[in-house]
């Protein structure tokens, strides 16, 4: 089953002719993702790795059947691209783009919500359901299909943990990067709710980091109603307050957003919080 993407996901790449867009279109195609069309305004009529390019999403959809898009459009134009995808009737939009202004993020996520469109990101590596669909920029080979759902605010740290899991024999149902920005579409709770209904997923790995209170909110939710086992790693225990640690969202503001607070909340909710990334698989062995 998995969540969000599967072998029925048919993808439009928005910003397909850019360096990143083109490069990852190739990798997604190689992984087996059904990339049916690309969009770059002004480049309609071209092809990128055999994928036809259109000027607008509407036009692409008039020629191809698609239900999702992935966005590689530069930050100043990303909101426009997301709104275009929503307006054209897509169901899922993965926003890879980093550095989108927070005001734009707030607006595009609000419009998505009003139109029942799922937004992943911004500033996310994307989402992958191994062997079915890779809608993102993660290295596909480190994932293996299985029973663990992963939800993460981070990119590379997710690969670290996912490859650990894979090596330890734990495959993944779906691995979802929710994005490193302060304001994102699908958050921990939304993703947990999806995994609840996914019978394939037996346990969930939650990878958090400093900043905000998404982990604390997730902990409340888990405590209240999430029934599957959850293991977690929180990055940034040694981060100083007031400094952005790479991600726009990774900042301790005053006394809020510390790793301690998150770890405490998660532990209180019965989540298995580990100190080292590699311990996740060890812990899962004990649980499952």
């Amino acid at each position, binding site marked *: 089953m998995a969540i969000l993407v599967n072998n029925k996901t048919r993808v439009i790449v928005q910003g397909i002719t850019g360096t990143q867009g083109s490069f990852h279109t190739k990798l997604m195609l190689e992984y087996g993702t059904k990339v049916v069309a690309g969009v770059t305004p002004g480049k309609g009529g071209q092809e990128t790795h055999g994928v036809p390019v259109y000027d607008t999403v509407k036009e692409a959809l008039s020629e191809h059947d698609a239900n999702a898009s992935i966005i590689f459009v530069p930050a100043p134009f990303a909101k426009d691209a997301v709104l275009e995808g929503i307006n054209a009737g897509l169901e899922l939009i993965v926003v890879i783009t980093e550095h989108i202004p927070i005001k734009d993020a707030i607006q595009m996520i609000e419009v998505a919500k009003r139109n029942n469109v799922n937004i992943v990101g911004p500033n996310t590596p994307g989402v992958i359901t191994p062997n079915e669909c890779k809608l993102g920029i993660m290295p596909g080979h480190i994932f293996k299909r299985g029973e663990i759902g992963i939800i993460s605010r981070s990119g590379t740290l997710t690969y670290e943990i996912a490859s650990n899991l894979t090596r330890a024999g734990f495959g993944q149902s779906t691995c979802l990067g929710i994005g490193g920005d302060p304001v994102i579409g699908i958050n921990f709770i939304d993703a947990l709710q999806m995994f609840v209904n996914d019978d394939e997923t037996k346990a969930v790995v939650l990878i958090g980091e400093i900043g905000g209170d998404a982990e604390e909110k997730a902990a409340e939710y888990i405590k209240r109603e999430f029934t599957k086992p959850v293991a977690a790693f929180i990055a940034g225990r*040694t981060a100083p307050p007031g400094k952005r640690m790479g991600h726009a969202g990774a900042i301790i503001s005053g006394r809020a957003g510390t790793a301690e607070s998150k770890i405490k909340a998660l532990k209180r909710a019965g989540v298995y919080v580990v100190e080292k990334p590699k311990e996740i698989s060890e812990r899962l062995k004990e649980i499952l």
Partner: protein
Amino acid sequence: MKLYEYQAKEIFKKFGISIPRGQIADTPEECKKIAEEIGKPVAIKAQVLVGGRGKAGGIKFAETPEEAAEIASQILGSQIKGIKIEKVLVEEKLEIENELYFGITVDRSARKYVAIVSSRGGVDIEEVAEKYPEEIIKHYVDPLLGFQGFEARDLVKKIGLKGRNLIIAADILNKLWKIVEKYDAELVEINPLIKTKDDKLIAADARLIIDDNALFRHPEFEKTMETEGKEFNERELKARKEGLAYVELDGNIGIIGNGAGLVMATLDMVSLYGGKPANFLDVGGGADPKRMETALEIILSNPRVKVVFINILGGITRCDWMAKGIIEARERIKIQVPLVVRMVGTMEEAGRKILQEAGIDVLDSMEEAAKRAVEIANRIAGDE
């Protein structure tokens, strides 16, 4: 980007929010002159971007111009949390009846801007939120409609404002929203908003943080970015210029990695094994050799660094490129300190080969590598 109090107040003034009479000074003489012009007791406020200025002695009052000069000479040139004070804001001292809190920021969970008012201003608002949650009044701003006048009135009414001050306070709150909208602010705050004994509402302090990601549409802040630069040291400035996420810490293990989460975790592992990271540095996704070279250059210009731990997990980042960058940096800048490299993922074999041929060991596990880096650092520290 954080603005200094005096810069934020200039913007407040432009939007019609009352601020105390005053001016910025960078010498005791100027400070004296300003105090003379004001002609009444003044407050002298260190201009720094770090929090907790008041507790650190950065705000003092003077009854006379002479006293003002005296205090300025103490504050100017002194340091707050390691930052040298170069400017003070000299302002009329206000006759306080009570202190309010007005602010607008982003609520991540709600995915909306949130306007916050409280009748308990002048203190840490987070503390108020913990101790007196009922005295924090919040309103989430509709992302499409924006913040309306009536919503501001509903809010300020809840903290007991009446009559003319109800209208003025609501107007101030609406103006804060206009500042958020116009400048892509991620935080705008008046703490305290002072109600004076003669019943005026004056913004005694001002905080304004602009969303870095939106600076491309605000060329008006180019100059402000320069003044902000004063809060950074040379290495931090260089990293900003190069677009590298770099945060300096006080340890001796230089750290480079790809991906914010991975680098944070790397710092955590180093600490876990008893080491002290000298910095956070994320080369980002898909970095080229040049980028690694620059990263090493920045890290190694920090004299505290005794060992460098490079943690690369190749996804879109290529291990061979990173290896190349390391080698090139080593040749160009003559690296004197030991390198601990952990490298797995895309083009791992090629990367390993490059490094091993240059005599650099490569490890598989970040935990192992962290442990090794700490051991080396401790050994060197012990030797010194």
